[in-house]
């Protein structure tokens, strides 16, 4: 069974706050849920499927379904880190196609800034029960230094340079200057990135994403309901997901799970990277974008550094506009999980509702892709391809 054409994204909402000390986690989830429902022209009582990742309070869907007082006949709390929400849209489309639900709600929210979660050297919330714990954590492994090792290897094998990495951040800042809600709105140059503190060789402080409070939500529904609503039609064309790991010690840091999730999504959609007018690509770090663009097929393996350089990701300037909201590098990265914002900006682009300064002309095909977990150890990849009908 294919999900191509079986479901539509009819609601999308990004919380305007980037710091929310006066709101509870459940409240943030509820606010983005209601925002997405209002955007779709639906009410909470229309929701019969709920999808959430590891950022909800409590166990799986229980507490949020209770808080919102929903009546659901389908729920899915698959957790692949920050990419979960892209996967959830895939699962929601599958559930809709199988008749398991009609209106699916996907939420992400968090308040790490207000809760004082440390930045930079953030350690994973690993459990000592994990079989891999003793072989990684004692060596001081952090999210930052593992991604840094991926960047170091990419530079070694392909000649990627710190300047090329910096261009990813420069493009994000060019987009964020037009986003009034973005956490960082100042334009950044390549030199600014290279002159920022070297935090984990070869990554500088400005190669790293922000950590923000807030969240977002999307609504997925079947074609018959989507056509009754008043919003532009954003059809799901294809999706893919994959898990990459350390393979018994056969480590290769140069590629991500996106190699497999991207290929599956394009095959299901019957499209190629050349068809994509806009891409939301997970930007936990600048290197993440380069590796994923290669894996998704936008350029050959090893060419990512050259592909992103010289403003090629900037809307109106470059060959592939990427993360026109400012991305996780400048705009928003709630709960250290950027997946939902990747879908939301793609929906804005397809609807023609992005900021005029970054709106892609004739944007009929868009892609959202995420990497959740650790690029250099274990992670999930999720790819979603959408079409403006």
């Amino acid at each position, binding site marked *: 069974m294919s999900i191509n054409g079986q479901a539509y994204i009819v609601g999308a909402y990004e919380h305007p706050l980037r710091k929310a000390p006066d709101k509870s986690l459940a409240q943030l989830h509820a606010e983005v849920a209601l925002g997405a429902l209002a955007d779709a022209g639906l009410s909470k009582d229309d929701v019969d499927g709920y999808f959430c990742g590891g950022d909800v309070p409590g166990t799986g869907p229980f507490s949020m379904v209770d808080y919102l007082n929903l009546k659901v006949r389908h729920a899915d709390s698959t957790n692949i880190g920050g990419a979960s929400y892209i996967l959830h849209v895939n699962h929601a489309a599958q559930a809709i196609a199988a008749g398991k639900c009609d209106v699916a709600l996907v939420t992400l929210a968090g308040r790490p800034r207000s809760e004082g979660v440390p930045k930079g050297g953030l350690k994973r919330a690993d459990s000592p029960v994990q079989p891999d714990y003793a072989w990684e954590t004692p*060596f001081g492994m952090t999210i930052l*230094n593992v991604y840094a*090792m991926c960047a170091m290897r990419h530079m070694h094998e392909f000649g990627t340079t710190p300047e090329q990495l910096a261009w990813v951040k420069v493009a994000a800042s060019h987009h964020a200057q037009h986003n009034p809600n973005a956490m960082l709105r100042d334009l950044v140059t390549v030199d600014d990135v290279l002159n920022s503190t070297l935090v984990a060789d070869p990554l500088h402080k400005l190669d790293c994403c922000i950590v923000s409070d807030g969240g977002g939500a999307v609504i997925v529904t079947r074609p018959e309901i989507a056509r009754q609503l008043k919003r532009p039609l954003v059809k799901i064309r294809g999706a893919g997901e994959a898990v990459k790991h350390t393979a018994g010690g056969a480590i290769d840091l140069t590629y991500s799970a996106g190699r497999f999730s991207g290929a599956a999504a394009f095959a299901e959609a019957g499209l190629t990277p050349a068809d994509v007018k806009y891409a939301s690509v997970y930007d936990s770090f600048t290197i993440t974008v380069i590796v994923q663009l290669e894996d998704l097929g936008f350029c050959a393996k090893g060419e990512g550094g050259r592909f992103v350089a010289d403003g090629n990701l900037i809307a109106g300037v470059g060959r592939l506009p990427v993360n026109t909201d400012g991305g996780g590098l400048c705009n928003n990265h709630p709960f250290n999980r950027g997946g939902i914002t990747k879908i939301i900006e793609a929906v804005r682009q397809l609807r023609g509702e992005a900021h005029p300064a970054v709106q892609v002309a004739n944007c009929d095909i868009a892609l959202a892709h995420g990497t959740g977990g650790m690029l250099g*150890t274990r992670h999930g990849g999720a790819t979603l391809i959408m079409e403006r009908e």
Partner: protein
Amino acid sequence: MSVLREALDHQPETKAFWSELAEGRFKLRHCRACERAHWYPRAICPHCASPETEWRPASGQGTIYSYSIARTAAQPFAIAYVTLAEGPTMMTNIVGSDFAEIAIGKPVEIAFGHQVEDGITLPVFRLA
């Protein structure tokens, strides 16, 4: 009890690795069915799924596959992936070396006696 000790207590299948290492013997888990070594060590071979795995002495030799210097830590340190002579690549630290000397492709050797919390010895490497 440290979290690392707790982690080791959760993994009876790798208990011997840590006790052997503490006595200056670095061992790898090999599979008798497919004759391959793997990392991290486990009872069931991740390559062929055979339960016929066993500890064998390792050379302690390898080369740096990738690394980074964690410069924001209170005590900056080198984290690395080292590809062992026996095949698998493992996460580790490079100790006792100038950060500027560390590079991908450089040969390294196991450095015994590197104890952390609770007297647990970690498998770390130094430039050879």
